[in-house]
């Protein structure tokens, strides 16, 4: 069983976001980078399959700038066997279609029984790459999978359906799944893993110079949040707070 896990390098979720001078991209000068958390959920699912069946091979594939090897090594340190680094210094501004095409080319060449992605990268939050990848590879796709297991030639995938229902799918392999947070917490990369990761192979590919299909026109920061208000004190304020929650905040 060969599992391909697609990961993306994204700004750490506690980064202080600044827009670059061009007005269409992030200022990345002082950003700390991490593996997108949903991709870590996907990797953890793959690693647990490997824990149960040692014949499983887990391969990381990522479209990322040439210098961005730390995130790939981190995945290897967590337990993946090898990585494919499709080098592209514009990786973080590529549109989903171009990203999916690059990933699909690499996966097609390497071959895979199961392809896992995070349900979305926490930078642009678009959530398109997984489904586009399935389309490119002409494979079935289940999105927002909470848990999964292998059963013979099928993957059994569990997801939340509408109205709080739980849906369980049986999908013939190969297949593409996008993974969301479930009960399996991603493991830490420990020292032994980091040592081993130093010797694990990272295959480097040059990204085919495909043009993006769309461009970001303007990127803006959210408006500053207005200051808090004190609407009254004690019990007297309850009805006003309820009204504001209903009518202004629209959370009730």
């Amino acid at each position: 069983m060969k599992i391909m896990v697609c990961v993306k390098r994204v700004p750490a979720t506690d980064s202080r976001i600044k827009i670059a001078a061009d007005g269409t991209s992030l200022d990345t000068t002082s950003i700390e980078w991490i593996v997108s958390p949903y991709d870590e959920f996907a990797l953890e699912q793959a690693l647990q399959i490997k824990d149960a069946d040692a014949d499983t091979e887990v391969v990381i594939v990522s479209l990322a700038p040439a210098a961005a090897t730390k995130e790939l090594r981190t995945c290897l340190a967590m337990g993946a066997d090898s990585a494919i680094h499709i080098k592209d210094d514009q990786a973080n501004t590529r549109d989903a279609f171009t990203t999916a095409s690059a990933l699909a080319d690499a996966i097609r060449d390497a071959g895979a029984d199961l392809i896992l992605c995070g349900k979305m990268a926490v930078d642009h939050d678009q959530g398109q790459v997984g489904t586009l990848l399935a389309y490119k590879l002409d494979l079935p796709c289940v999105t927002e999978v909470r848990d999964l297991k292998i059963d013979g030639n099928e993957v059994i995938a569990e997801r939340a359906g509408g109205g709080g229902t739980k849906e369980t799918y049986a999908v013939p392999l190969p297949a593409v799944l996008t993974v969301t947070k479930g009960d399996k917490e991603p493991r830490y990369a420990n020292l032994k893993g980091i040592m081993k990761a130093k010797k694990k192979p990272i295959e480097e590919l040059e990204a085919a110079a495909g043009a993006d299909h769309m461009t970001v026109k303007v990127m803006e920061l959210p408006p500053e949040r207005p200051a808090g208000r004190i609407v009254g004190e004690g019990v007297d304020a309850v009805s006003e707070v309820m009204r504001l929650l209903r009518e202004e905040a629209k959370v009730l």
Partner: protein
Amino acid sequence: MTSTASPATLSSLVKPLFLGQLRSEALVPYPTMSADDAELLAMVQDNVAKFAADHIDPAAIDQAHAIPQEVLDGLAELGLFGVAVPEEYDGLGMTNTQYVKLCETLATLDGAVPIMSGGHSTIGIKAIQLFGTDAQKARYMPRLASGELKAAFALSEAGAGSDAQALRCTATRDGDDWLLNGNKLWITNGGFADVFTVFARTPDEERDDGRISITCFFVERSAGIVSEKEEEKLGIRGSSTVPLLFENVRVPADAVIGDVGKGFKIAMHVLNAGRTGLSANCLGSSKVLIEEMAKYTNERQQFGLPISKFELIQQKLGRCAQDVHALECMVYLTTGLVDRGHKDIALEAALCKIFGTETLWSVVNDAVQCAGGNGFTTDYPYERMLRDARVNMIFEGTNEILRLMVAKTGLGELGAALAGSTTGDALDKLVRGSEAPDPIEVPAALQRDALGLSMGIATLAQTSAAALAEHGKDVGAKQLVMAALADQVLALYAQMAVLSRAKLVVEAKGEEGAAAELLLARGACRRMAARAKAAADSLRDPDVGLLLETAAAVSDSERVPTEAP
């Protein structure tokens, strides 16, 4: 000059300053990590930070007066106890720079965890790692790396604090074994450590020449070491600090680390080399405090403006940032020297420790002040960080002892150089003033500061020579003179580090790209030059006599010896 086995380029940067010499060739280029080393470090830092976000609660650890067992277990699982252990013994084999940068990271996450980690990695395992036999290392190092065994360093005693030679704990031969007896005090990790690096007098080995014999032992707790009650402390409450009791603790001959009677050298070597780790703890805490200060003073409004718009707040932010910048440059210059193979960094590391601990103390003081009443409450982290910061100026060599050590070593160099000189009036010549060394080559924007550094070095050489000429061999007892020399050296080493790093950054990024670096470098250099000058001027302070006479009156009466009329 005393000759050393190592090549000249690998000898101390600080010692030649006392002779008015600036060794640019060892200072430039400023050391940097390889891309691979930086990546490995970042992975470890990320994972530790991730673990901390999930499991480490500094306020809870402070209140519980202990690091929870599951945190210790988690850190062991993560591999924290093996970061400094060589790869051949299943450790990560970090370079000195990597390790010290990790110390800095740990200090941003908690107050007690970096102390616990340093108690193990910086001092607890160092003696066996550096001076142990292959058999001793094979037996212990892999288990020390995994955290299965946690280590402590046991040197201090009730009567042997700054004066480590005054040890009373003894080890006496009993057949092939040794029997250890006595008490140790202030032992970090002592409450839970499994193995102890213990220093004891070996009186049977002493001859009649009055020199004492100290031997280093690596002792398992199960041999019979008893931990007494945890100390109730002002700060770093989560770290374990206990007295140890040895009553006929029997250890085998192969528990001796290094040679019998060579323990004092081992202890000093471990402590000298370890002080950069502690200074990096201070660096990490200081950076966190500056971030908190900057956020707080941006948000806090008075008179219709964020208080960061007021000059008395800006003064604090600016000074803190300049000092922390200088500290960072110094610490990683020093660790870089170690990684380049410099063995003789005792003075450099001591200066990092003095400056780091005092910088943190002033930063935390300013941070509390900026936060006003909030800074004084337990709702904010400031009061805890203030309590945690205080001990740094006391342990791992008090700052007073380290200042004396720096000046004594420096004057020793100067004395030795003069003794070897053929001209009899070499000292007089130096006292009259020596020529400033050639300034280091720096970008145009820093030339004035490079010149200032050279002038400061000349002043140090002149004042050092004057101190030797005036006090001769008794200069060591003139502690105010010694401290004034040490403070000059500290400020000079800081300027060297700042200029070297700025040169590197400007060459890589251009003056425009390095604007922030240049701003901080210039500010830090001016501040340090002023500090060096103030220290030199203090040597001519005519009021020292009044001060010392007053101290004597206080000591006699044990009170302020005056009454209000």
